[in-house]
Each structure stands twice: as structure tokens, then as C-alpha cells.
């Protein structure tokens, strides 16, 4: 599959908490229909970058463009419309604990479409079936396992057929088999829905299995060290740190 058209363009982004600059001079492109991974050590700002990309945090400097539209230069109403084109799967699933799984998935459909309750119920069943949770609609989040919560969170994230789906460390806390199943599901959903996928992860197996493109954030220099296909970066990156990270080694030297 070839993906050439840019869906998200990040230009010279600086992320900061008050005066503390977490990352600076970040520039990269996420292509339509591709799977993009955000990599880096713990605490380097991966999840913060995700918050910037999902429109939850305003950049300290720089621009984030969706289909050529500068997100933060739009009025609030337009920004909300743009945000509705994306779905997010949070690390813990972030299901609303007082609602059943079905109600969790139905909520965005009830809030943002004029569909009838019957059709919403059918769509919810289909979405739950897609993630392997057929028949779990009436369960409360507290009654299902961690892996199932993530899949239910994914069903909610794709409820509105988003153009782009963000994943915050989807493999965290999952056993290798569940993690592999989730990776396969992400690939199948990308291929069938044609959605663009952005994943924050430091799981090498997931990175190599899924990513078309990636970015590596560094804690020391507080900027990106590399961007590109992780398989190529593992062998040919100029940065020894990136090669170390991708080969899970402590001995790679320039």
C-alpha cells in the first residue's frame, strides 16, 4: 500500500509545561492511511506529543496542520469538528465506568449523529464484533479484563468512522499473545477502514510489526533524533541512540 498524501503535518513544534520545554523543533509528516509510531525513552514526551496531536494541548510554538488546515488557528467550533475526525484509545481504555460497554460505544454516535436508537444499537454491535467483543454490550467495564477494556476502548474510538485513530501505548499491561492480537487488529482495521493510525509505543515487536513511519524523541537533547521507517532506522540511522533503541542493545556505538 502506498501512502503519499500528508494527513497531519507538524511544523517546528515546541512542547512545554510553563517554562519547561519538553521537546522543541519537531517537524514531521503523517501520511494518509499509514501507521505512524512515536518512539522514545520513558518521560521524553511521547504522550504529550499525542495530546498535542489530538488537540488537547496547545503548542508552545509551531503549527499542527490537518489536511493543510492549521488546527490552532481555527475557531473552537471548527477545532471540535476536526477533533471528531479522530478517535483515541487511551492506555487504560478510559471507559466511562458508570456506563456499560455498549453505552460507551454508543455515546459518540448519540451525541454527534442523528441516527435512530435502533441503528445506533446495530452499529454498536458491529463495532463490538469488529474488536471481538460481540455480546459484551451489557457488561460494565469493571466486569471485563484489561485487554478487553482496550478493545472496547478501540470500538469506542472507531465509533464515528474516524479518519485517524490514535493509540497511547496499546500494548502496555498486555501479555504477548493479547498484544500480538491487538497489533493484528490494528493492522486489519487500518486495511479495512483505511484509517490513518498513530501509535505511541516503545514495544519493539509492535513497532516493527506495524509501523510504516516513525519519529524518535530524545530526552537529553529534547528534540527528535530521527524520523522514517523503523526497519531502515534500525540499520542506517545517523544516531547511535536510535540504533540502540531499535536493536534493544546497549552496545551500539557510532
Amino acid at each position, binding site marked *: 500500500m502506498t501512502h503519499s498524501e500528508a494527513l497531519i503535518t507538524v511544523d517546528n513544534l515546541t512542547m512545554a509545561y510553563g517554562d519547561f520545554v519538553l521537546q522543541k523543533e519537531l517537524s514531521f509528516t503523517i501520511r494518509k492511511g499509514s501507521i505512524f509510531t512515536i518512539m522514545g525513552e520513558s518521560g521524553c514526551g511521547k504522550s504529550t506529543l499525542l495530546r498535542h496531536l489530538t488537540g488537547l494541548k496547545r503548542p508552545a510554538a509551531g503549527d499542527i496542520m490537518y489536511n493543510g488546515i492549521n488546527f490552532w488557528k481555527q475557531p473552537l467550533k471548527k477545532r471540535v469538528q476536526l477533533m471528531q475526525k479522530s478517535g483515541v484509545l487511551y492506555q487504560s481504555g478510559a471507559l466511562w*465506568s458508570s456506563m456499560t460497554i455498549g453505552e460507551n460505544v454508543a455515546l459518540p454516535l448519540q451525541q454527534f449523529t442523528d*441516527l435512530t436508537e435502533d441503528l445506533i444499537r446495530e452499529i454498536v454491535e458491529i463495532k463490538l464484533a*469488529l474488536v471481538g467483543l*460481540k455480546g459484551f454490550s451489557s457488561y460494565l467495564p469493571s466486569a471485563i479484563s484489561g485487554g478487553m477494556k482496550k478493545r472496547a476502548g478501540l470500538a469506542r474510538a472507531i465509533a464515528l468512522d474516524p479518519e485517524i485513530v490514535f493509540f497511547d501505548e496499546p500494548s502496555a499491561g498486555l501479555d504477548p499473545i493479547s498484544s500480538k492480537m491487538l497489533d493484528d487488529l490494528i493492522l*486489519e482495521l487500518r486495511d*479495512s477502514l483505511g484509517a490513518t493510525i498513530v501509535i505511541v509505543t516503545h514495544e519493539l515487536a509492535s513497532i516493527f510489526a506495524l509501523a510504516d513511519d516513525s519519529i524518535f524523541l530524545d530526552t537529553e537533547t529534547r528534540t527528535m533524533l530521527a524520523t522514517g521507517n523503523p526497519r531502515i532506522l534500525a540499520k542506517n540511522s545517523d544516531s547511535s541512540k536510535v540504533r540502540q533503541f531499535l536493536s534493544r542493545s546497549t552496545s551500539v556505538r557510532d
Partner: protein
Amino acid sequence: MNPECVSQINDDGDALSLCFSGPWTISTLPFSLPDVPSLLTDGISSLYFNTDRLEQWDSAFLVEISAITEMAAELGITVVTDGLPDGIRKLLRLTRKKTVIPPSSNSLESGLFEEIGKQSLALVKESVQMLTFTGDIFLAYIRFFTGRARYLKKDFTFFLFDCGPQALPIITLISFLVGFTLAFIGAVQLKMFGADIYVANLVGLTMTREMGPMMAAIIMAGRTGASYAAQLGTMQVNEEVDALQTMGINPLDFLVLPRMTALILMMPLLAICSDFIGIVGGFFIGCFSLDISPILYYEQTIKAVHLNHFLVGMIKSVVFGYLVAFCGCLKGMNCGRSADSVGKATTSAVVTSIVLIVITDAGFTFFFNVLGI
């Protein structure tokens, strides 16, 4: 262009083909489909799709196709999905993957008798929880007094400060207004009999025996009891309580004892404050609204309020302090593992505390009345 679906049956009359054209998305709903069920039952043995002229599709189209294919499969008709877009074929395959559903479905609907049964069992469970917790607390206090309980001294001083001096402003405000209101209502009635001066008796006795301890307890139930339940509940959710247990530290000693002891110690002091401020509230009304001389009001209060009245209030406040801390800690420690259960634990702690305070107060009043105190 509108979404359209045309049905075609082949010359042999055994194959149905559905030809989709235009955009089939949520935004182009409602779709007009031919009467597929009746077409399928007419000697059809296979179903084909043609989507050459399909422009766009999303979940709405998937729902339609899924319903049609399921219907056809139930009727034993062969469904040929080659004509569908790749994405739809993959999605259909995903939706048909088998899932294993555990037997205990969380049904939200239940009948009247089932509901009565559930509530009764919940009540029994709660009573057992309370008794067990009481026993655990008793054992924890034995460890505490024999110096074997493991807890942080700074936690204890923090809770002493939190439920003592920190609570004074709100206790002062509410108690002043309660004394003020009592005096006002009493004054209207007593004035009719020319017994204005007895406002001092009314306010003094009511505040020291009943309202002082009770108002302090109710405020502390909403303020500190709720906070205990929320703190301990959140610790349960974050597995902090489990972490203590795995380290061999008894969570009751470490978390519950400092909180409970602090509140039991501070509650009588808060009640004394509440008594005094309530009497001051009444004093304001007596002096400024009923024109009673301040000295006279003071002397009448001293004459009316005896040490035993004050002690009755103090005994009550110690018990109320225990009840508020008990409910807050019990609900927090038995909280579930979700954010939702923290909210429920907090609400339940406040409600249970207030109910127990009022019931206990009625019991005390009856008991002291029988004893003639």
C-alpha cells in the same frame, strides 16, 4: 447522487444480485433498499453483490450488508462477497470471529422480586461488613495500645490538624447560625408568655445536649468522613492498599487508625466550640432583638446549663466522632476498583454516617431520659 440499490434475478431464477450505487454513508441515511427478505425467499440459492458504482461507504453500509448476509446465511443461501469492497469483506470477516462470553452477563434489568432479593442480600452483606470491620478495628486498637501498630506519626498529626483547626471556620459559621435561628424561633413563642429570658435556657440546653455535638458531627460527616472514604477508595483503585499489604503492613493500622483516632479526639473539641458559638449566636438575638441585658442572659445561661448537660454532649460527640470515622474508613476500605465506586463509597459514607448519627442520638436521648440525666 443518492444511494441506490437495484435487485436483479438471473434467468434461471436462483441467483439474486444487489447492485449498489452512490454514497452509502451515515450522512446519506435513510437508505431505500428493495424488500430483500421477500426476494431471498423466492427460490434463490445464491446472493451476489455489485458495488462497481458504489462511491463511498462507512459503518452504515456495513450494518446493511451485515444484516443482509446474516439473513441470507440463516436461509441457507450461499453469499458470494467477491463483489463487495475489500474493506467491507475484511470487516465482515472480523465481525464473524467467535467470542467466548462468560456466563455471568451483567443484566441491568431485573424484576421486582429479584430486586428485593438483591437489596436484601446487599443489606446483609453490608451488615456483615460493618461487624467484621468493627472487630478488625477493635484488634487494631489492641495493637495500637500495645505499641505493635505500624503507622506514621506525621500522618496522625496531619489528620489531627485536618479534622481539628482546619474544620473550625465551618463549624463556627454553622453553629453561630444554628444558635441564632434557635433563639429567633424560641423568642417568638416565649415572648407570647412574657418568658423572653428563657431563650437563654432554650439555646444553652439545646446547644450543649443536642445541636452542638450533632451539628459538629454532621458537618464532619460531609467534610471529613467523605474525604476519608474518597482517599481510601482512591488508594484501593490505585492498588496502594494492596502494596501496603504485600509489604506486610496492616492497612488498618497504617491508614485507618490515624484517621479514626484523630477524629475521635477532635470531635469533642469541635463540639465544645460548636456549643459555645451557638450560645453566642443566641446571645446576640437575646441582647439585640429581645433587649435582654447581656449580664442577665449570661447568668441565665450559667444557671440553665449544668455540667451533666455538657458531659452528655461530650459523650455523644465522642461516639459521633467514632461513627463518622468508622463509616468513612469502612466505605473507603471496601470500595471497588473503579472511579465510579469511589463516588459511590463517598456518598454512602456520608449517608450512612448521618443516619447512624441521628439514630444514635435518639437512642442517647431516650437512655439519658430514663436515667434522669
